[in-house]
């Protein structure tokens, strides 16, 4: 009965907003399902299941042969989604139900069957399933499986279920393949750790803790190296006999979206760096890099318009030699020497920033205004490269946030523990006598402030749209954010990076909140980034 069980898992994942809830659902799946079905389900959720897919038009033909066209049209009109309409409408045979197919059976049959037999196979499975199972099957065979469980979440759930660090799973993940039986054997203590051998694998990244101003003053400058914190995406590059790969911070393989970087990885090494859009000596703001993110492939035009490069931070492996246990200062020297010898295209060193005192460093941080710089990174000279966020070794010292006084416009209820609280806020600034929304925030406030805001919103509601309330334009919120960017996708013409509620300004009349020109003044200049 694994396909109905998989359908139930999918359904629950779609309706469960919280991460903790999704993790619990996935743990239940790994614990309760047999091999190879649980591994196939894992692959499907992690986006690693490659199936010969059927076209939606085929499903439409199948259902058309079994239903009245008028009733189909009325149903489709009501439901609004083709896959769901077909799943709900598919006629159920009277009499004893046939056994539902197993997930593994569906995948194997799709692999092996001649093309002409596919429609009959799919129809047979649909006959044996209930509505939930039919929807899951249709999504599976049309390649339309989209749930909020990306690979990282699935691996976190695997780690929690098996009681191991997620880093341990990430290290072997790219050396195992669906249905992951060797991986499950290892996690259940029934087999050896899968050996990725020559295959390129992702090594979990070392992360930094945020640093406060007063903590910074206490650091001994002699013990620390400083470099810019670039506002791109953190990546890992692996090159070797098994091929080259580009990984995201969470271990997703993003090689296909950045073929020019992979093409430049003709060496045998593992590098840590920041992926950025770079034109000549100028680093473009994050919003330009966004044009290249979350794509399965890339067009030559996009490659031309948004040229990417990697600023290198660290050298993890040189050839087969694992440098991660070595101190940062030594790795940095190895990186510089390696870079001088290899000079790979589309890569450059992220420079170290010389400084004599913490005051001097604080001044450099305060003066850095370029859009591509988020702040500073401080790395202890003697720090080994360790997976995850280890306290006291690496610090990120972000620039002071920018702030704007905005007016609360709409509020929406949250989920889980916040499900009864209006905790998501849309706020705006003045433009020609009217408020235009500039962003949404759902963090930054204390529990007491949340209670107060929730009460204020209920008492000042002027309209309701489903879960959203429009409020009187009377409350000023001081909103903190990392950067302001121009954006054609937002009505106001601007987008804010990481906005959060800094303070509730009960003292300030709404009419005195900021105007759109204040946002424009905070948009950082592109370029001018120290190389």
């Amino acid at each position, binding site marked *: 009965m694994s396909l109905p069980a998989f359908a*139930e898992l999918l359904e*629950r994942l*779609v*309706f*469960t*907003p919280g991460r903790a*809830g999704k993790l*619990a*659902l996935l743990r*239940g799946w790994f614990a309760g399902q047999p091999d190879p079905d649980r591994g196939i389900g894992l692959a499907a959720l992690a986006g690693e299941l490659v199936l010969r897919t059927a076209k939606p038009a085929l499903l439409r033909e199948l259902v058309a042969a079994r*239903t*009245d066209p*008028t*009733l189909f049209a*009325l*149903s489709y009109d*009501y*439901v*609004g*989604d083709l896959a*769901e*309409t077909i799943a*709900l*409408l598919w006629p*159920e045979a009277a009499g004893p139900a046939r056994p539902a197919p197993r997930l593994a059976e569906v995948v194997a049959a799709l692999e092996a069957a001649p093309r002409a037999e596919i429609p009959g196979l799919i129809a047979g499975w649909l006959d044996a399933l*209930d*509505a939930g199972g039919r929807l899951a099957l249709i999504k599976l065979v049309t390649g339309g499986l989209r749930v909020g469980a990306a690979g990282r979440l699935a691996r976190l759930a695997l780690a929690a279920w098996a009681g191991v660090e997620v880093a341990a799973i990430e290290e072997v993940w790219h050396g195992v393949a669906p249905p992951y039986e060797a991986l499950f054997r290892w996690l259940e203590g029934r087999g050896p750790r899968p050996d990725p051998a020559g295959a390129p694998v992702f090594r979990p990244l070392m992360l930094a803790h945020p640093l406060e101003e007063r903590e910074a003053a206490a650091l001994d400058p002699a013990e620390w190296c400083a470099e810019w914190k670039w506002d791109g995406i953190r990546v890992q590059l692996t090159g070797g006999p098994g091929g080259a790969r580009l990984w995201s911070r969470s271990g997703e393989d993003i090689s296909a979206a950045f073929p020019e970087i992979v093409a430049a990885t003709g060496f045998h090494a593992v590098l840590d760096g920041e992926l950025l859009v770079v034109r000549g000596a100028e680093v473009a703001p994050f919003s330009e890099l966004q044009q290249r993110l979350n794509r399965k492939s890339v067009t030559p035009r996009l490659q031309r318009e948004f040229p990417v490069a990697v600023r290198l931070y660290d050298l993890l492996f040189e050839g087969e030699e694992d440098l991660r246990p070595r101190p940062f200062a030594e790795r940095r020297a190895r990186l510089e020497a390696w870079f001088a010898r290899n000079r790979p295209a589309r890569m450059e060193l992220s420079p170290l920033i010389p400084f004599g005192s913490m005051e001097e460093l604080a001044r450099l941080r305060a003066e850095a205004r370029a859009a591509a710089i988020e702040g500073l990174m401080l790395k202890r000279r003697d720090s080994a490269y360790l997976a995850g966020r280890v306290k006291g070794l690496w610090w990120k010292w972000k620039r002071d946030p920018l702030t704007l006084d905005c007016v609360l416009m709409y509020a929406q*209820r949250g*989920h*889980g*523990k916040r*499900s*009864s609280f209006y905790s998501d806020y849309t706020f705006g600034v003045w433009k020609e006598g009217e408020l235009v929304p500039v962003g949404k925030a759902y963090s930054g406030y204390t529990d007491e402030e949340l209670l107060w805001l929730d009460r204020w919103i209920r008492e000042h509601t002027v309209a309701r749209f*489903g*879960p959203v309330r429009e409020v009187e334009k009377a409350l000023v919120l001081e909103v903190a954010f990392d950067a302001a960017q121009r954006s054609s996708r937002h009505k106001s013409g601007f987008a804010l990076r990481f906005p959060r509620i800094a303070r509730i300004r009960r003292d300030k009349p709404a009419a005195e909140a900021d105007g759109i020109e204040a946002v424009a003044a905070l948009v950082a200049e592109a370029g001018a980034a120290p190389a």
Partner: protein
Amino acid sequence: MPPHPDTWLRVTEAGLYCEPGGFFVDPLRAVERAVITHAHSDHARPGHAHVLATAETLALMRERLGEERAGRAQQALRYGEALTVNGVRLWLRPAGHVLGSAQVCLEWRGARAVVSGDYKRRPDPTCPPFEPERCDVFVTEATFALPVFRHPPAEQEIARLLRSVALFPERTHVIGCYALGKAQRLIALLRAAGWDRPIPLHGALARLCALYERLGVPLGPLPPATVAEKEKLAGAIVLAPPAAIADRWARRLAEPLPCLASGWMRVRQRARQGGVELPLVISDHADWPELLATCEEVQAPEVWITHGREEALIHALAQRGIHGRALHLVGRGEEEGE
């Protein structure tokens, strides 16, 4: 030749009116004489002078509307017991919708019409099952009259709920449901599935559950879901009106996992409105196959449709040689239940 029902059963502004009998069925505003199919508020309105219904429906109306507004004179009629009103023979048959729900069967000079009210054909431990009555005109609802609406067995949905409770044992599963019928059916289904723990209730559900018990439907322990008992609410299944499950009332619950029991939950887009995390497809209305099977079973050449998705039902009835007609009765809930 018996008179066609459309000559003596008419749609008026106040609702369906039996002219020779001088009474309305489920009138939309206060009238002199009303026959009431069941106690949901879109069928049982306040202020009628004379009300005829099953004893259970009358008791539920008194509980909800108060003694004064539930009809100045109330007359109870047992299922199957016939009465003649100004020459019109009148009797009631179970509709299987909620406790006390009845179809109103009318016969005038050899012509027979059945006004079914709301009904379902699934077994329901809290009320007697629907009994088909052969007739010339069958008056039906069409709440779920699209072939996409096929309710799964309710037991299967309860099993899904209990699996979720096992997976999230520290959270409160709070089920949004209407106070009359759905709440009691859910409780009875849970009891039948072996859930014998107390089922804490939102205050709005307590009185009708107590009345169901007095009318002979055992429901087991149903404590109030009060703030004082907060620690007992972790891991519990709690019932509340749909509007309460994501609002301030729910703050007393332990990381509430909002569920909603309704036939509408069959369609994802409907289920996703309002933050439901576990949609349960449990309905007290007939689904598409039940509607069609019932219309065929009563052998009526003509079916009148009070409210809902008439177009699809008329189309499907025509293919079966049955003439369908939309009455466009206003004031009937688009929402299921009440």
